[in-house]
């Protein structure tokens, strides 16, 4: 198997160019452009109907694009039928062949390719060993656990050494604990083999846990692309901020290159933000980036340069073991949620006055947004 080569200068393995898919009047995938790098683990993240699965289906060849181009190693895939694309795929429910043994399931792609029996058996044995299923080789899929089925499905998809492995919500049907185990297993397998994986999920935790890069889909478009860390820390737009993790949104008026008015407070902005002056903007702060101080603490600890401070009243604080979340009403009437390591936090009684501080560098600012972007969607 090839080693993991993840250099950015290399030409991409798969390119999607202005890829478009329409069903009647409905645009499922809206002119997307994307480069998939060789060896990377890329996740398509989005809620149902966002176009992520349709895009994957077009790469696999089960859906035909309305327009646009799909390139694999610079060659067009558009007119190549699924069975000749040489792509590996793991389906939502694994889709193992129920009437065949594990060995024959894995051997199927080789049988179709008319690989000689000796070589076929050798390859199947090798991959059985790789996924640690030697002991189950003669069982039927119905006799396997969810995790074992996943490994058979991966083995079947890898046995013919495809350049890219597509995975369509393969863990969707499993319970949380098993999912996490299989996610770890999958991440290790990817590291070991260095194969390019494109993974589809609606679960942001799963996307974070597995992927090197995440493409966030919304209404047929990719609205965010980058590492989980970058997308979480500096979301490119309010939708991504809201979709990935929890977030506080505050409407502010920009008054200068690095200053703004929040209700009656003057606050400073990270001067990396370039915003039109005298316009409303949306400030986003993650709950864990809000520090909550009692009036006494606020008096004793000087405000560090680059930090903002506003006052607020505690509504409710909830102890969650490792963390403490707190809902606070600020003078403008808006509510903020904070989340801090519990051991560092004094008890906060409902109704008590507190001061909220945050580092202006740990906030994001948007000049354009839609109300639906910031209403936390709980489609998970």
């Amino acid at each position, binding site marked *: 198997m090839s080693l993991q080569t993840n250099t950015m200068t290399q030409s991409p393995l798969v390119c999607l160019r202005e890829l478009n898919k329409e069903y009647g009047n409905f645009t499922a995938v809206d002119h997307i452009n994307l480069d998939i790098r060789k060896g990377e683990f890329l996740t398509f993240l989005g809620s149902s109907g966002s176009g992520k699965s349709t895009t994957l289906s077009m790469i*696999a*060849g*089960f859906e035909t694009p309305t327009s646009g181009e799909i390139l694999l190693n610079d060659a067009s895939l558009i007119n190549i*039928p*699924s*069975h*000749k*694309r*040489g*792509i*590996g*795929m793991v*389906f*939502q*429910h694994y*889709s*193992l*062949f*129920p*009437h065949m043994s594990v060995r024959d399931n894995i051997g*199927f*792609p080789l049988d*179709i*390719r008319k690989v000689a029996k000796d070589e076929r058996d050798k390859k199947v044995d090798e991959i059985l060993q790789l996924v640690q299923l030697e002991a189950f080789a003669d069982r039927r899929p*119905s006799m396997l656990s969810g995790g074992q089925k996943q490994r058979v*499905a991966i083995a*079947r*998809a890898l046995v*013919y050494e495809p350049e890219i492995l597509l995975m369509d919500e393969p863990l969707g049907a499993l319970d949380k604990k098993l999912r996490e185990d299989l996610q770890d297993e999958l991440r290790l397998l990817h590291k070991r083999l260095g194969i390019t994986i494109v993974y589809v999920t609606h679960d942001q935790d799963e996307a974070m846990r597995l992927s090197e890069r995440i493409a966030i889909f919304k209404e047929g478009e990719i609205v965010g692309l980058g590492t989980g860390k970058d997308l979480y820390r500096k979301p490119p737009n309010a939708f991504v901020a809201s979709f990935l993790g929890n977030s506080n949104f505050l409407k502010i008026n920009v008054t200068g290159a690095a200053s703004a008015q929040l209700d009656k407070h003057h606050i400073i902005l990270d001067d990396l933000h370039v915003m039109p002056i005298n316009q409303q903007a949306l400030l986003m702060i993650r709950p864990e980036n809000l520090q909550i101080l009692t009036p006494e603490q606020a008096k004793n600890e000087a405000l560090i340069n680059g930090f903002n401070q506003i006052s607020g009243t505690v509504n409710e604080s909830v102890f969650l073991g490792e963390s403490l979340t707190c809902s606070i009403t600020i003078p403008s009437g808006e509510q903020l949620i904070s989340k801090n390591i519990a051991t560092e936090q004094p008890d906060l009684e409902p109704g008590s006055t507190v001061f909220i501080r945050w580092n202006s560098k740990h906030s994001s600012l948007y000049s354009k947004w839609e109300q639906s972007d910031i209403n936390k969607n709980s489609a998970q």
Partner: protein
Amino acid sequence: MLLSHGSLGWKLKSSLYIITGVIAAFLALPIFFIMALSFGSSQWLVFPPPSWTLKWYERFFDNSQWIESAITSLQVASLTSIIATLLAIPASFALVRGQFRGRDYLYTFFTLPMVVPVVIIAVAVYGTFLNLGLTGTLFAFVASHVIIALPFAIISIINSLRLFDKSIEDAAVICGAHRIQAIIKVTFPAIKPGVISAALFSFLVSWDEVVISVMMASPNLQTLPVKMWSTLRQDLTPVIAVASTLLILLSLLIMIIASFVRKQSNHH
């Protein structure tokens, strides 16, 4: 309400047993009756039979007309079964997988022969085959039986095809198999119980069909039910009870095979 009254539970229970028993008897008694008569010695079908005999069976198997009509029935039913199933497979794929306007209407159309009174179909095919000069041929029997067997075959295959997860076929395709190859190697084994049921039910539909067959029959070519019908019109003989018994036994055998196939498929 009586049904929800706890204190009447045992009464209700026993009355339910009795009602079920009476209905079962109502359905099964004529069959036992006719079977008993086929072994009875009375020429006038006296019940209970005064004594037991196998002579009516000897009469049946000695008479070449009875044997020929039984063989014709088997031939017609077998051919109907094969042809209806072969037609139902592609039709079912189109009705389940197809993305075209009027698909649901087409499904209704294909199942129409189940709803239309058989006598209307019988008159229609009789008129048609009479014009073509085909009445009394094996072709006419099979063709007309396929019409009424097809809905059963299509429903049976459609049901198993709807239950089949298409992504399993897609998996075979992405593994490198051509669509047709994937259907043969993966889809077909999965829907096999449905296909076998389709064949068995088509066979049964043809095997005990009488209304159309009476119209298609000629003195030289008739199925077992037709022979029974025409014999019955001339005289009442226990040989008819023998023919009925044989007809029932084969039907029963096929029903048992069909339920066995269903059980097998449920095990998956």
